[in-house]
């Protein structure tokens, strides 16, 4: 177990920058997710930490020691790949034994099938067997040890890949989209299992995914990466409720956050879709802004009393809740509002309803930089 520190990492592929000055601190025993759209550089960062890719500059420390000059095998991190990357010609048992043998047996001992003859190697093999069997039992694959990877289902291969990482007790687990090749139902199960595994092992997990829901449900902290930069690091609830950047706000959360273009005039009032509102957000600046709010942070009201009126264009019934899509004149995308079953039950397509905003929950972003402009009240709660 160890902490991982990444400082000022940059990387370009054939002139195309993939990572720009990325710095990250992963604490010992922490579950940290790197999340972002595909091509944002999150996998490259993971591969640089593993030593599979060489950074252009910057440095990586694992357990307080620089590993920049070390080959992947010497960094003592385990990786679970998207394709699982099991050795196709080896049985499940031998797949799990491979990292142990590579680490503990000499070239001579493992070279010529001598492991069974040499007493020292035999003792070690017995240790490996105990370790592998214990791990296999924990993962529920002890019945599969003699099978070849080709004879396993996707979920079983996934568990073997985890097992191969676990048996060697690495300093950290690096996982590169390990769930993306599983079907939706299995993904939920394994998600819970990986979380449980993390609690049980107490090891450092660095987890790469493009699925924000996966990151939200599993992690201690989330690092959102876009266009080669870390936009925000924080606990799931922080990045959800208190995003530092409009891109983070848009990326995290499902259904997506609502964003309306607006302006803050000289008197501190917000102008939305051409109408002035009495919203008490006391903005830190004037000029063009983007105002964002989560579907559950606004409500619907009677059209007569509302300042902002739209038409219901679509109703999505999620069972527990209902999502109302509201088409607002002057806004391209509909606004999505989450309502409870009881209130939403009489809504009909085409109804004219009013939109009720809560100024405390409105998130204000600079129009050009996309950076968050915190209102005084929000600054207070954030600190």
């Amino acid at each position, binding site marked *: 177990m160890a902490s991982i520190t990444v400082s000022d990492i940059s990387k370009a592929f054939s002139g195309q920058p993939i990572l720009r000055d990325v710095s990250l601190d992963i604490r010992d025993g922490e579950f940290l997710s790197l999340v972002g759209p595909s091509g944002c550089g999150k996998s490259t960062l993971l*591969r640089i930490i*593993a*030593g*599979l890719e060489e950074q252009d500059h910057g440095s990586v420390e694992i357990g307080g020691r620089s590993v920049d000059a070390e*080959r*992947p*095998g*010497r*960094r003592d*991190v*385990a*990786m679970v*790949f*998207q*394709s699982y*990357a*099991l*050795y*196709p*010609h080896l049985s499940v048992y031998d797949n799990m034994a*491979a*990292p142990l043998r*590579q*680490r503990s047996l000499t070239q001579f001992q493992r070279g010529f099938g001598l492991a069974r003859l040499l007493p020292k190697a035999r003792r070690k093999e017995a240790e490996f067997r105990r370790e592998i069997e214990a791990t296999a039992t924990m993962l529920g694959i002890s019945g599969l040890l003699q099978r070849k990877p080709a004879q396993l289902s996707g979920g079983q291969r996934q568990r073997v890949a985890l097992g*191969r990482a676990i048996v*060697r007790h690495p300093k950290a687990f690096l996982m590169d989209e390990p769930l993306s090749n599983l079907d939706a139902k299995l993904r939920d199960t394994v998600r819970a299992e990986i979380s449980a595994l993390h609690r049980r092992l107490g090891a450092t997990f660095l987890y790469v995914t493009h699925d924000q829901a996966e990151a939200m449900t599993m992690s201690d902290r989330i690092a959102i990466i876009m266009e080669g930069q870390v936009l925000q690091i924080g606990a799931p609830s922080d990045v959800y409720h208190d995003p530092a950047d409009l891109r983070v706000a848009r990326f995290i959360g499902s259904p997506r956050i609502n964003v309306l273009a607006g302006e803050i005039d000289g008197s501190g009032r917000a102008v939305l879709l051409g109408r002035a509102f009495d919203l008490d957000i006391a903005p830190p600046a004037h000029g063009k802004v983007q105002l964002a709010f989560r579907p559950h942070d606004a409500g619907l009201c009677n059209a007569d009393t509302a300042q902002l009126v739209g038409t219901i264009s679509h109703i999505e019934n999620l069972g527990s809740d209902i999502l109302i899509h509201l088409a607002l004149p002057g806004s391209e995308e509909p606004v999505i509002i989450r309502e409870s079953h009881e209130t939403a039950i009489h809504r009909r397509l085409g109804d004219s309803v009013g939109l009720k905003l809560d100024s405390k929950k409105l998130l204000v972003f600079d129009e050009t930089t996309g950076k968050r402009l915190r209102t005084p009240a929000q600054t207070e709660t954030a600190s």
Partner: protein
Amino acid sequence: MRGRRLSSIIASVTAHAVLMAGAVIMLTPFLWMELTSLKPPQEIFRLGLHILPREWGGAENYGRVFSDTPMLRFLLNGIVVCGAIVILQILIAVPAAYALAKIPFRGRGLFFALILVSLLVPIQVPSLFLYLGFARAGLLDSYASLVLPFIISAFAIFLLRQHFLQFPQEVVEAARLDKFGEFEIAWRIVLPSARPAIGAFAVFSMVAHWNDLYWPLVVVTDPEMATPPLGVVFFRNQESGSDFGALMAAATVISAPLIIAFLAAQKTFVRGLTSIR
């Protein structure tokens, strides 16, 4: 519904009739070879159509094959020559293909271009120059002259390179993290996965060289050094087309190894022989 069923039965019967007729044509040479090799000469030369042997001539025919020709020597030559070719081809092709697929080195592109061009060159093209070379070196009528021209197979290198290229890079990376060295990755992880491809190539090459007549005809005049195809040609010329029973027996003996191997391992054979895809 009934009309449809009837017409499908008619289609099925027709298909089987056509296929069966084709199969008879395909198998006739084999059957006739066997049957004739079991007939005494007077029966072969008797006019009129008769299929099964009435008298037993097998012992005499097969006996003549082994007494009049060094047939066992032909077979041994065939095994030695084909075995040596296939083993050397693989030993040379595997490292070259691995380097082409997985290790960037200076001149790799040129090397691969050379491989692609060599795929277009059949043995008959270099044969003239190689013959002159072996003649000058006094190596005609030797295993060396039968084996050496074939030990480099551009096809094997091409085929294996494709295979190594398709080997998932993530598995190689997993091995690096598991502390395998680069040499161990090649030898213990990537190479075992190529075993089926190497096996398919070995079958392909074995059949091709067991069958080759052109090159043995060029470099071998001594019957002691003849491969099975050349041996049966020598025997045919020696008999000058009179003793068909013995000739068919000889044809049976030199065809037998491949046919038995094919019947025993059909899947491997078909995959190997069609691996040019």
